[in-house]
């Protein structure tokens, strides 16, 4: 059974994102899918450009925010929309291989995400499932 899934929750002005998985890394990957799912239709994005993202963070909640905001920052820096995420954790060190492609005609234009916020931020494990959630500003 696939435990990794992404989803959304309600917020008046912005969007609440949820990532779930069997590990905290999988939950973060799913949260990234939820976030970039606001920006475009991920199924149509070709994983032609690969980028490595690394950061250090002890606090899992701050790690989620760092992860999402680094993805947004590098994506905007490179003009790339990411669709695939592979994250690994070694203590406080987080390292990800992510891929996507530059904006082109034919990619759905959704809504730009400005940043991941500390609002409704939580990273928790319930039984075998990790869940990561926060509000992203659009």
């Amino acid at each position, binding site marked *: 059974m696939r435990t990794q899934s992404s989803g959304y929750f*309600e917020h008046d*002005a912005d969007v609440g994102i949820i990532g779930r998985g069997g590990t905290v890394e999988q939950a973060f990957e799913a949260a990234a899918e939820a976030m970039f799912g606001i920006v475009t239709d991920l199924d149509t994005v070709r994983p032609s450009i690969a980028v490595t993202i690394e950061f250090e963070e002890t606090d899992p909640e*701050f790690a989620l925010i760092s992860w999402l905001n680094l993805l947004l920052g590098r994506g905007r*820096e490179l003009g790339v929309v990411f669709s695939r995420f592979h994250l690994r954790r070694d203590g406080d060190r987080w390292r990800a291989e992510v891929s996507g492609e530059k904006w082109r005609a034919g990619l759905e234009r959704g*809504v730009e995400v400005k*940043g991941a916020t*500390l609002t409704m931020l939580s990273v928790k494990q319930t039984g075998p499932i990790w869940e990561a959630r926060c509000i992203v500003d659009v």
Partner: protein
Amino acid sequence: MNLDQLRQLRAYLWTFPRQPGEKRAEVLLYGTAPLLGSMDDKVLEQIAQVASLPGLVGAALTMPDAHWGYGFPIGGVAAFDAEQGGVISAGGVGFDISCGIRFLRSNLDLGDATSRFGQLANTLFQAIPAGVGEEGHIKLNPAQLDQLLQEGAYWAVKHGYGNTADLEYIEERGRVAGAMPDHVSELAKKRQRGEMGTLGSGNHYLEVQVVDRIHDAAAAAAFGLHEGQIVISIHCGSRGLGHQIGTDYLVMLAKAAGRVGIRVPSRELACAPIKSPEGQQYIGAMNAAINCALANRQILTHLTRIACAKVYPHAEFETLFDVSHNTCKVEMHEIDGNPRLLHVHRKGATRALGPGNAMLPERYRAVGQPVVIGGSMGTGSYVLAGASGNAAFDSASHGAGRAMSRNKALARWNGRELVDDLAHQGILIRTRSLRGVAEEAPGAYKDVDLVAEVTEQAGLARRVAFLRPKVCVKG
């Protein structure tokens, strides 16, 4: 919002009484029972948390268009005194630092313009980079960007984007002091590389409007507005640079709060004492982002003029005003009869200086500062003038305010159908994101007429003119 929690002090002003032992300052909410009743309880929770921050002066306030935000509620206003341990909060400014509206008046009337609205819509859509993934044509090297972050709209005018007359009608004359580009991260600067002169997405727009109704003839005359006149509103902010500064400092200040002994009820309030190194760094970076936003709207003004000239060769577009609504500004306010220098956070709230304020351009000094309440693409917007005796640190509403989440709007409306329906109503939409149109459906917003009326009756700003949309380039 459950109104049973509130006590009405007078018409259009309510308070959220403190519980015994609760240590926070007063919370004041501007609005009517229907407006407040339509707000999420989270608005109250967020503004009460703001009221618990150190060094707050007076009350923590919400405007009539308030809604649930992150950190502060949108429509939240709070002033802090640095000498009393007051704080600066990244959550009190937001990611889109200095998001605001550039408002242009023209010498065109509806009768002259209508027949070419289709051509105008297409020309503007080609000229204005709008929507997610779109880049601008201006690429700056690091030294040029640092210069821009110091000089704001002045930099843009100096480089041929617009004219010096524009600067007179921009807050801070187009350039806020105290910008410190050294405190802006390299990633923030890299994010801005392709984003000067871009509109962005979400609720950002460029809208061609007609002055449909005048409410205050004297103020309208001072603003150079008359019925049937074509005007343009450009709503956008500091783009990727501001977003990254917000990102960088939200986490930094959240971590700093504990280190410097500030107990915040929620991490989202991320703040530091104004006088702390972290606070000063954020203020320097935030001011750089304000200058970035002012330059961005100046460049977009220039691009708009060029596009309009292709359609209406004899048209002229003058800057009526440029006002930001996501800022923290250092201002002098009289508190209990004494002048005090305060850091006034306005998160989704517009500064609204009243008549006689020395910071206003001479032309508007007798009537008050132009204030724009941006409505949805299907309803309209208001121009107001700052009122005398504004008790909310000279602040007013900034928009209609959302009444429905984006997910609900997306489930209810279809973007293509909305664009077609609006075209039947004589409103031409141009967009790269039909999904964005659905999320921004007119029905997803509060009644802008009510918000503007309550803003006036609450003594925050006076209605001057109602603007009806004709052409909208949606971000």
